[in-house]
C-alpha cells in the first residue's frame, strides 16, 4: 500500500518535472530547428517536429542581410557597461546603506524597493526626454544609463542584505591593519562576492534581453542591440524572414547558456544560503 503510494507520488513528481522541462526546452528546440530548416519548410503543414533537412542558409542570410555582428557587439558593450555601472554604484550604495545611518536612511531602502515596483513603461518618456536633452539618443551610453537605472534598485536591495550579514570586524581589522576607509570597503566587497555574482547574473540577463529602452533610445546600427535588430526584421516587406530571426535569436541566447552552465552551482548556492 505504502509502496504504491510512493510510486504514484514519484510518478506524479517526474511528470511535473517533465512538463516543466518541456515548456522550457521546446521553444528553444523549435527556435533552433527553425533556424536550420530551409525557408520553405518552415511553414509546412502539419509542422515537422523532427529535423529532416539541414541547412545553414538562414545563418548565411543573417550575416549577409543584417549587421548581426555589429548588433552583437553593441549588446555586449551595453551589457558590459550596465554591469560595470550598475554593480559598482549599486554595491557601493548598498554598502553605505548597510554601514552608515543618515537622515531618512531607514526609509531610503523602502523607497528604492518601491521604485522597482513601478512599471518600466512609466520611465520611458522621462528618460527619452532626458536623454534627448543630453544628446544621448542613439549612443551606447544612453542605453547603458537606462539599463543601470532599472537594475540599480534590485542590486542595492540584494547587496545590502549581503553586507548586513558581514560582521563589521573584518573592515575594522582592515582599518587597523592600515587600509583607508575606501579600501576597507573592498574587504567587505570581497566577502560579499557571492552576492555580487548573483547581482551580476541578474543584471546581465536584464540588460542583455532588454528591449523597450533599447528600442526607444537606439536609432541606427551604431547602437542597436540584437533584440531590437531582430524585431526590426519583422517589419521587412513581403515576408517575415523567420529563419533569419530564429538564427539570430539562437546565436543571441548562446552566451546565456554558457553563463548558466559555468555558474549554475554558484548561483544556486548563493540563492539558498543567502550569501
Amino acid at each position, binding site marked *: 500500500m505504502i509502496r504504491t503510494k510512493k510510486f504514484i507520488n514519484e510518478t506524479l513528481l517526474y511528470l511535473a518535472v517533465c512538463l516543466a522541462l518541456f515548456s522550457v526546452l521546446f521553444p528553444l528546440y523549435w527556435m533552433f530547428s527553425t533556424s536550420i530548416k530551409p525557408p520553405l519548410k518552415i511553414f509546412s503543414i502539419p509542422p515537422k517536429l523532427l529535423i529532416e533537412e539541414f541547412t545553414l542558409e538562414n545563418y548565411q542570410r543573417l550575416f549577409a542581410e543584417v549587421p548581426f555582428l555589429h548588433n552583437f557587439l553593441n549588446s555586449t558593450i551595453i551589457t558590459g557597461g550596465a554591469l560595470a555601472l550598475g554593480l559598482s554604484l549599486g554595491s557601493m550604495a548598498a554598502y553605505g546603506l548597510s554601514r552608515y545611518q543618515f537622515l531618512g536612511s531607514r526609509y531610503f531602502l523602502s523607497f528604492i524597493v518601491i521604485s522597482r515596483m513601478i512599471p518600466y513603461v512609466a520611465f520611458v518618456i522621462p528618460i527619452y526626454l532626458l536623454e534627448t536633452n543630453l544628446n544621448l539618443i542613439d549612443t551606447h551610453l544612453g542605453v547603458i544609463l537606462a539599463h543601470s537605472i532599472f537594475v540599480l534598485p534590485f542590486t542595492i536591495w540584494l547587496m545590502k542584505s549581503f553586507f548586513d550579514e558581514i560582521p563589521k570586524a573584518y573592515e575594522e581589522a582592515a582599518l587597523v*591593519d592600515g587600509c583607508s576607509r575606501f579600501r576597507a570597503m573592498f*574587504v567587505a566587497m*570581497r*566577502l560579499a562576492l557571492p552576492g555580487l555574482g548573483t547581482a551580476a547574473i541578474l543584471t546581465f540577463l536584464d540588460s542583455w534581453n532588454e528591449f523597450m529602452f533599447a528600442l526607444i533610445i537606439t536609432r541606427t546600427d551604431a547602437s542597436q542591440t540584437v533584440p531590437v535588430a531582430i524585431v526590426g526584421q519583422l517589419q521587412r516587406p513581403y515576408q517575415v524572414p523567420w529563419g533569419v530571426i530564429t538564427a539570430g535569436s539562437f546565436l543571441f541566447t548562446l552566451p546565456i547558456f554558457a553563463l548558466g552552465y559555468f555558474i549554475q552551482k554558484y548561483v544556486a548556492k548563493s540563492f539558498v544560503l543567502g550569501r
Partner: protein
Amino acid sequence: MVEVRFENVSKHFGKVIAVNNFNLKVEDGDFLVLLGPSGCGKTTALRLVAGLETPDAGNIYIGDVLANYLSPRERNVALVFQSYALYPYMKVFDNIAFPLKIRKFIKKEIKKRVHQTAELLEINHLLDRKPRQLSGGQQQRVALARALVRNPQLFLMDEPLSNLDAKLRVIMRTELKKLHQKLKITTIYVTHDQEEAMTLGTKIAIMNEGTLQQVGSSVEVYSSPANIFVAGFIGSPAMNMLDGELIEKNGKIIGDFGIVSYSLPHEIKEKWQSKKLVLGIRPEHISITKEKITDALKAKVEVVEPLGREWMLLINVKGKTLTVVMKPAEFIELGDEVYAKLDEEKMRIFDKESGKRLEYKNSKSI
C-alpha cells in the same frame, strides 16, 4: 612602544554613556587589563585608542601625539578582535602579510617577516591553510601573528580568549604572558574574566558604567579595593558584605554591623559622608574552629562544598549568611555548630553612600 593617556575622555552612543570622564595612564611596556562587567565601556575605551571610535570629549594621547582625530592606520596600533576577524578568503600567509602589503613592503621583506612571526607563534606549518581549516586556538595565533608582524607600538586585545574552551584559554593565557615578557610591547587588554585579568595584567583597570573604578596591580585591587563595586567584583567567591552603622557611644566611634561591632578611630567621623557603613571581608579571611575562641562568632554550617584543594562553606551567623573558604577540614559537617573568627586586619570598611573605602589604622574589636 609607547605610553597611552586618556584625559577626561567621554563617549556617548545616543543617550547611552559608554565612557564617562575617563582618565587613565598606561605606562610604556605595561600590560594593562581593562576589566569590568558587560556594557561597562571597556571595549569602547579600547576602540577609542584604536581609532575605531572618536571621543566626544577629552583627549587620547599615544606617546606624545594627540590621537583623537588620527585614523586607525596613522596610529600604528594592532588590534586582536574577539572574533579574530581573519580574512576568510585569504590563506594564513596572506592574512599575516596583509598589513605589510597595505604598507607596500617589498615581497622579500614580507616573506621574511611573516616566516619570523609564524615561527615565534609556532604556526609555520599552517601558512598554506585557509582560516576555516584551523582550530580556534590556531586562529587565535594567526590573529596574534597578523597583529605582531608589523611591530606595532601598541597592542590592543578585545577579549581574545573568550572564544576558546577553558583548557585552551589557560594555555593561551600563559603564552600571551610569555609573549609580552619577551616583546615588552605596551598592551591594553579587555576582558570580563577576572581570573584572566589577575594572571595577565601588570596593572588592572576596573571599569563600571563607563567610569574608572580603580587602577592597580592584581594584589592591590584584590586586597585594597577602592570601593564597594571593586570589592564585590574582584574575587571569587565574592567578598562578604555586611551593612552597618556608625554610632557614637561614650565618646567612642563604633561601627555596628549587626553580628559584630568594631571601635573605629575618631578621624573616621570627618571622612564619612553618611552614617551607613559596609564591612567587607574576603571568604578566606574568616577562620572556622569547632571550639569556642575569643571574639569568635557562633555559626551554623549551611552548605559544604568540598572543592578538592579547598572547601567552601556557607555559614549562618545570627541570620546573616557568610561565605568561607578554608583548607579541607573533615571535622566539619553540614548543620554543625562552629565558631567563626573574622581577621580584623584584612577586613575593609566602606561608606555605603559614596561606596568608597576609607583608609584608617586597624581598629579594635569591642
